[in-house]
């Protein structure tokens, strides 16, 4: 027997479950098409400017570990890293990736190496210099990134992943030295700082979409498709509910309370 007051919630959960699973299966055959993300579209321009000025591109995926609940943000950041690396390799721009998690080092090396290989520029890739493990303590990492900004003056700075209190510190430092910045995080408390300081933004869920779009992983892309359908359900329920409420009919609100 269902517990009263939780019936609709249980049904909703089952519905989302089925939709997400179905979307993931379908995505294996046909990868969903993604809408344009303004933040991603800015990357060619950013790398282009780095090429013009001969300065490097700086990349960071923030803090967090691969076995915690922010792992999916980290994974999204790494997918963007692979994309940016390939573009940098093509244009002969140096990309510096500042690493916080030692466990990410081998993954990043692999990703960047294959990016340079597919650009046919493997000889330009210097993992020692380009993938820098700075520290695994928050503020030591932050001050080391600041050091890179002040010494090497990157033309562009891309930050995608789980960011914490260091977000403002990074954004402010790179702004001061005149880098163009793209930032994205799903950690709600930090988005405002990026919105204030950075030129381009990936807001909240947009980073997952960016990651899924660039990595072409059917599980992730399908899951996003499933969530999109969930958003339709939310919108429809709200609109129908509003209309009925305006007509004085509480059917939807009663349904949701079941």
């Amino acid at each position, binding site marked *: 027997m269902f517990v009263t007051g939780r019936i609709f919630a249980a049904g909703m959960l089952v519905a989302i479950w089925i939709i997400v699973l179905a979307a993931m299966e379908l995505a294996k055959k046909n990868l969903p098409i993604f809408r344009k993300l303004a933040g991603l579209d800015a990357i060619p321009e950013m790398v282009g400017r780095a090429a013009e000025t001969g300065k490097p591109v700086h990349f960071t995926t923030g803090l967090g570990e691969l076995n915690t609940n922010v792992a999916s943000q980290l994974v999204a950041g790494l997918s963007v890293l692979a994309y940016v690396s390939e573009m940098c390799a093509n244009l002969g721009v140096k990309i510096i990736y500042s690493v916080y998690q030692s466990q990410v080092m081998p993954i990043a090396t692999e990703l960047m190496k294959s990016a340079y290989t597919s650009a046919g520029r493997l000889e330009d890739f210097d993992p020692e210099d380009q993938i820098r493990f700075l520290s695994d303590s928050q503020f030591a990492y932050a001050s080391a990134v600041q050091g890179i900004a002040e010494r090497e003056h990157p033309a562009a700075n891309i930050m995608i992943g789980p960011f914490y209190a260091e977000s403002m510190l990074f954004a402010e430092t790179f702004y001061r030295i005149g880098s163009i910045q793209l930032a994205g995080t799903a950690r709600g408390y930090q988005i405002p700082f990026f919105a204030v300081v950075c030129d381009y933004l990936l807001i909240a869920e947009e980073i997952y979409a960016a990651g899924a779009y660039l990595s072409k992983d059917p599980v992730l892309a399908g899951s*996003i498709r499933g969530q999109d359908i969930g958003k339709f359900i*939310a919108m429809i329920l709200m609109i129908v509910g*509003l209309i009925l409420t305006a007509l004085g009919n509480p059917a939807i*609100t009663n349904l949701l309370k079941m």
Partner: protein
Amino acid sequence: MADFATIIQIWFAALFTIWVYSIAFRDNVFFKFAEHTFVGAAAGHSLVMGVNNVQRSGWAPLMAGNYLYIIVFVLGILLYTRYHNEYFWMSRFPLSVLVGIGIGITMRTTVTAEFIAQIQSTAGMKVLGTDAWTAISNLIFIIITLAVVYYFVFTFPKMHGGGLGIISIIAKYGMMAAFGYSFANTVLSRFNMIFGRLDFIMSSWLPLPYAMIALPVALILLIYAMIPAARRPWPKTQN
């Protein structure tokens, strides 16, 4: 007058405060010392609280004769096999229990708390039959909520093309206003924290004997430590 132990405690706390603030100006050896103390203290403190928690929640029932709790102790110890190169996979059993509990309790309530309750609250808003101001406010509220949900639909690109692009623009404006509000609130939070520390220094530390002398000395030392190693007479090594 405070006792000796308290006086020492205040001195430590005050010096650490000044050293940490110095990072806003430049990296230096005093900050590094304070930072390492912070990281060490954080790890030590959570270990202590962990032991305390295990004693109260696990050890006590076990001693009271609930032998089922042996299982959880075994699982707890298995967590630490993650540091072993060969047996690290054994830590996955307890971790799976933790992950399973985490998913179970979040999923079962998220669907109500953050999905259904929010929809219900929006659907119940009145646009007709209220005063004009409330009606307009509610209408703006509804439009922004719907637009933001719409904005985060990714895999139906046609929904964002042509004239429909206006919805995303509305969403963006709504979110920017929200971010402006958050930003101002964060300033308030951080300033309150700074106030707390400065208040401590001014009302607890500075009234103590010698503190007024120590403050300028500490500041001079700090400024000295901020000078790049190559340009200062001693020590010549960078840290």
